[in-house]
Every structure is written in structure tokens, then in C-alpha cells.
């Protein structure tokens, strides 16, 4: 009888500690998930402010003078042909560039292709249907030719949106 009581007591104590341990583990791992989400968010925030200086996007000296926070859209259209190679390159789940001003409302939702560029409103490099977007304003510059066949720089206001899982 005494052994039976003790056995029940021991089982109860063991169960208590197992349940308490599992509770601690759940709280612990929810903290880890939260940290991972926070790190993804920080990555997106720091990346979006600097992605315009990345060589795949930056204007460099292509527009007669060095331009900062400037994305060369001619180069981005060229990058679109090679985007499969860059799929996991920046560690983000989505990437889009959109024109803000001058804003042609009829073109705003038109995605750029080699056929319609530059008569379009956005370039979706890495498409995604979910996640959180972090935008940053940038200059969007390209080369154009005037009626006298003289090349000139066309720079507009745009934004780059980096999407992370969160």
C-alpha cells in the first residue's frame, strides 16, 4: 500500500516537472521565433537603405556624375533577365521597384517587361504574395534620346520595396 502511494506520488512529481519543462521550452522557442523575425526585419530595414548602392542597381557614374541613392532602371531591366541566379542572393522574399513621381495613374500597376519599358509603373524582380514590405525612396534614372537623337538623363522619384517573411 505504501509503495503504491509512493509510486503514484513519483508519477505525479515526474509529470509535473515534464509539463513545467515543456511549458518553459514553448516559451523559450517562441522567443527564438520572435528573435528570428526581428533579425529578418532588421535585415530588410538595413538592406533597403543600402540596396541602391549594390552594383546590380547603382547608377554609379553612368549618368555623367556620381549619384547616390540612385537606381539605374536600364540596368535593373537587364538584371531581370538574370534574376533566377539572384533568387537567394539578398536573403529576402520579395523585391520591387516602383515609380512614385511623376506618377502616371494608368501605368502605376503595369509591370515592366522588355516590350513595354519604360512605359510601365513597376519592376517586380522577386515576386511574392505574402510577407511584410519595407519601402525606401530612391532616384530612378535611365538614358533617353530626345527628338534630335541627343541622349539625356531621365531621373524620377521612386521607391524600392524589400519584402521579408514576417
Amino acid at each position: 500500500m505504501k509503495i503504491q502511494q509512493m509510486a503514484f506520488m513519483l508519477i505525479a512529481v515526474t509529470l509535473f516537472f515534464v509539463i513545467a519543462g515543456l511549458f518553459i521550452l514553448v516559451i523559450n522557442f517562441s522567443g527564438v521565433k520572435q528573435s528570428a523575425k526581428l533579425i529578418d526585419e532588421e535585415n530588410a530595414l538595413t538592406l533597403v537603405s543600402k540596396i541602391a548602392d549594390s552594383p546590380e542597381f547603382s547608377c554609379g557614374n553612368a549618368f555623367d556624375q556620381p549619384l547616390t541613392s540612385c537606381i539605374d532602371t536600364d540596368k535593373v531591366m537587364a538584371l531581370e533577365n538574370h534574376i533566377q541566379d539572384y533568387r537567394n542572393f539578398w536573403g529576402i522574399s520579395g523585391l520591387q521597384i516602383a515609380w512614385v513621381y511623376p506618377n502616371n495613374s494608368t501605368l502605376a500597376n503595369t509591370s515592366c517587361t522588355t516590350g513595354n519599358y519604360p512605359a510601365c509603373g513597376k519592376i517586380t524582380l522577386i515576386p511574392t504574395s505574402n510577407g511584410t514590405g519595407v519601402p525606401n525612396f530612391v532616384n530612378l534614372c535611365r538614358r533617353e534620346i530626345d527628338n534630335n537623337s541627343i541622349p539625356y538623363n531621365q531621373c524620377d522619384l521612386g521607391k524600392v520595396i524589400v519584402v521579408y517573411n514576417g
Partner: protein
Amino acid sequence: MLNRKQKRGFLQIPFSWLFAIIVGAIIIFFAIYAAVKLIGTETTVSTAQTGSQISVLLNPLETSFGQEQVTTLSIPVESLLSNNCDNAGNFGSQQIVVSQMSGGKWTDTNIAPTSHNKYIFSNDSVEGKNFYLFSKPLELPFKVSDLIYLTSANDNYCFVSAPQPVQAELSNLKQGNVFTANCPSNSINVCFSQASKCDIVVNQNQLSVTKDGQTMYYETDALMYGAIFSSPDVYECQVQRLMERVNKLSMIYSDKENIISVKGCPVDTSLSADLLNIGQAATSVKTSADLINIASASDNADGENNMTSCRLW
């Protein structure tokens, strides 16, 4: 004649006590085992988080227009940062594995975030609490990436007889562990001319750096610093990764040339040929000694790009 009681053992422990002791011992064993495992998991999580945060901290080191940048990284406990470089895949990958001192030994964890867009030049492992990160863009002839040089604040580098531009650049950086004059006695000596007590020798005629008995070759100052601050195996791996990116960028510039040509903004045809040469030369680089193949194509392309009315970069 001994009676029944006298026949029993010296220790007369009731069975209920014996049962309690055995089961109690098993419970305590499992509790200790679980606690040790939990501490191990916590340590792994902590080092992985530190590794991820370091990776995030490197994003702002992206430079524009040749602006070198220095930043410091402080970790609350003595840490060992291991630089794992892998050149497999499209752009290769980079991991900084953080090990922290626990119970008198380094925690052994291989969990670290992988980044494909960073090129960190350092020794195989760097130890300390405070670290310096210095970044400089590599241009061959277009910007390829920002190279990040990671050193421990415990290691002082003394640049002996460095050429004036290098001295000026390093002095402007004001990086606490890099000296061009009045070097501390325990410094790692980086010699640009024949001298005694050289740990690292830079030969500017051959464009080579000799370190740990091995010779690494470079093009541009950005790769020279890479060879100075990193282990030969890390350097060779990063060069391979950079060449993969040069190849991809040359293809992107080739496509950009087509896009602007259609608009009526023609680019010199010899520039197209040079871009093709740069891509081929980058693909053929197996070791840093092959970097010389890319140099002439790079110089030609840069000259032609500067002369054309529709520049590619």
C-alpha cells in the same frame, strides 16, 4: 542457531526506501540530462543569434563612390569568429560562426546564417571581444562588391614603408589597430619593402602578398588589403566568389548595352567585346594567380566606357 532476523543483511533497508532511491535517482538523472541539453540549446541559440546580428550589421557597410568605412563590433563575452567561405553555387556563400567561451572551452556550433552577398576577408578564426570591420569597394572595372576586412582589436597591424596613397588611406580610416608609424612592439608587420621581422610581405611589382609562407596575387588595393588581412584559403575562396559575381555583372552590363542601344544610345562595339572578355577571364580564374587575365580586359573596358556618350557604369 541463528534466527530468521539474524540471517538478514547488515543494512536493513525497507523495500519502499530502496524503490524511492532508485526512482529518485532516475528522475534526477533525467532532470540533469534535460538541463544540460537545454543549456546547450540556449548556447547554440545565443551564438546563432549573434552570428545573424553580425550579418545584419554588415549591410550598412555597403559603400557608394569609393568611400571606405570603418565600424567596430563589440561582443559582451570573449568570442571566436570563424570565417567559413564556400565557393559552390552561383555566388558561393559566407558564414561567420560565433563560438563563445563556456566552461573554459569554445562552444562548438555550426549553426550560422549563410549570406551570399557578403565577402569577408579575415583569418580563419579571429578571437576577441572587440573587432574592427573596414570596407572598401572592389572595381574591376565596374563596382563588383564591397569587400569587408574583419580584424580583432587584439591584433595590431604595422604597415612598414607603405606607399603614400596607402598610408594616407589608412590614416584617414583611423582604425584603432592599424598603424603606419609608432607601431606597438607586438604588431603584425606588413612590409612593402625588404626588411627584417616581416610577417606579411607585399610585392607591388608582382602584385603579390606573401603570408604564412604562401603567395597570393591581387589586382587593385581592395584585394591587396584582402590578402593582407585574411588567411590564404579564405582569400582564394573569396576571389573565386568575386569572379563569379564579375561574370554575372558583365552579362548584366551586356544586356544593358542592348537595352540602351535599342533606344538609340549606341555603345562602342569594342566595349561589348571587352565585356565578353571580362566574363570569360573571370570564369577562367582558378586561383588568384589568374587574376592577371582580367586586368587588361578591365583596363580596356574602363577606358572605352569613359569615352562613350552612353556609359554603362
